[in-house]
């Protein structure tokens, strides 16, 4: 992977200056590259990974399996558009599973809120045959980051 993309995929908080130092480049070179990645649609955005359990924010995640009937002219794409336009939908994937077609990640404040969203917004979309909702009870790791990892440096000085 391109080194700048690799760094950003690991930590979106790296500054241009930090990245320039780590990759032995100038800040201008880093800025130009990032700008090009954005223009080419390669770098879509950078998001923080938050452990909501350590905040006072109510935050629930659910994975919803959708069985759908693809439409004759546009296959799954039209249905996908009708789903991903909702801001509650955090991710949407077309899957290879035999049991369902689309996997949707939805985030909300409560289970009830998500249940309403599925019942009132997702399920009625034309082409959706069935939904199966799985609520996340505990996050152990997301996007490569372990949620409960402790960071105490146990290393001793031994020469």
């Amino acid at each position, binding site marked *: 992977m391109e080194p700048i993309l690799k*760094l950003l995929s690991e930590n979106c908080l*790296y500054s241009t200056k*930090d990245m*320039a*130092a*780590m*990759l*032995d480049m100038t800040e201008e070179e880093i800025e130009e590259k990032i700008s090009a990645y954005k223009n080419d649609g390669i770098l879509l955005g950078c998001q923080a990974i938050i452990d909501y359990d350590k905040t006072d924010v109510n935050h629930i995640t659910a994975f919803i399996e959708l069985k759908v009937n693809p439409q004759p002219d546009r296959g799954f794409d039209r249905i996908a558009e009708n789903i991903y336009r909702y801001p509650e939908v955090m991710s949407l994937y077309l899957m290879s599973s035999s049991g369902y077609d689309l996997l949707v990640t939805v985030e909300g404040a409560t289970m009830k809120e998500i249940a309403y969203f599925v019942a009132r917004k997702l399920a009625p979309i034309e082409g959706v045959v069935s939904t199966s909702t799985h609520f996340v009870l505990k996050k152990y790791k997301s996007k490569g980051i372990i949620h409960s990892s402790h960071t105490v*440096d146990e*290393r*001793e*000085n*031994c*020469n």
Partner: protein
Amino acid sequence: MFNCQNALSEKARSLKPSGIRKFFDMLTGREGVISLTVGQPDFATPWHIRDAGIDSIADGHTFYTSNRGTPELRREISDYMSRRFGLSYCPEEEVLVTVGASEAIDLAIRALIDEDDEVIIPVPSFVCYSPLVEMCKGRVILCETTPEDGFKLTPEKLKAVISEKTKLIILPYPSNPTGAILERDELSALCEVISSTNAVVLSDEIYAELTYGKAHTSIATLPGMKERTIVINGFSKAYAMTGWRLGFSCAPEELTEAMFKIHQYAIMCAPTVSQYAATEALRNGDSDIEMMKEEYDRRRKFLTRALSDIGLPCRTPEGAFYVFMKLSDYGLSSEEFCERLLEEYNVAIVPGTAFGDCGEGYARLSYAYSLDHLKEAVKRIEKFVRSLS
């Protein structure tokens, strides 16, 4: 009343405490210290290696192994030395598994050194070589390397100290603390000097996997050198396995046999669980090395640039995970600089003098730390050096 002091051997009594230890003791109990002192990876051992250790216990591999190490591990070490460094060693007769590379260094020195035998040790370097030689009543011949030579042992410097009394030459490259490496042409020039003597070479290659941009060359790959070289390596740095205490030596049969005898009586065998884990490391761990090395490389570049930006330019290290920072422009000795930095700004770095008197004017900074940690350290160092000027 019984007097313990009187019970001590002359050897133990005369052994000086490690200079580095003295500084580490100052850190004990201090709160909020940003330390750049640790000489070990900040990565935990990769999971597949840990699992191999756990499985070995679960499977009941809880007995002594062969004194030399398990046959499987010695075969893997032999394959590894061939695959990574182009060296060929017989796993049955030329490989010895030890408790860390440190034991292998001790064994090599004890196997070779009699009273008054001379041992050439380039400095600044790791702290263990001189005391081990002194305990064998050997004569330590320090060979000072300089920043002008990139802290590398040069043929001229070697010629100046080598003699018919030279029994052993220690080559600690890639270097802790300077980060210097020796490339093939530089090793070749040293070999020309060494080949006319009867000296054995102890090549401490514990940081061999951590070179940046240039592959490590072992002196044993040079013509005529394998038969007089003890190559020492281990799992601590390359595979982040410091706590597993496992190293090894590769050397001609006669030298290995002599080291083996001492090892057999002193240690018996290296820990069994560690040997199983290390076998897995060698079989499936090459990608772990690459991942960690890439991370160290980023930090290396970051730290050298960050120090340069605050007016502390330092030589870009080519190996290991240390920056040897020049601090002689501030009118303080290395110890004073480091002590005041600790007292006033709670940053711990190791005075260069811990690695030999010629380390005066320098300090060792480890970059086996996260980027945020390094940034905070540099920020505080900057405040400190500004307060000095």
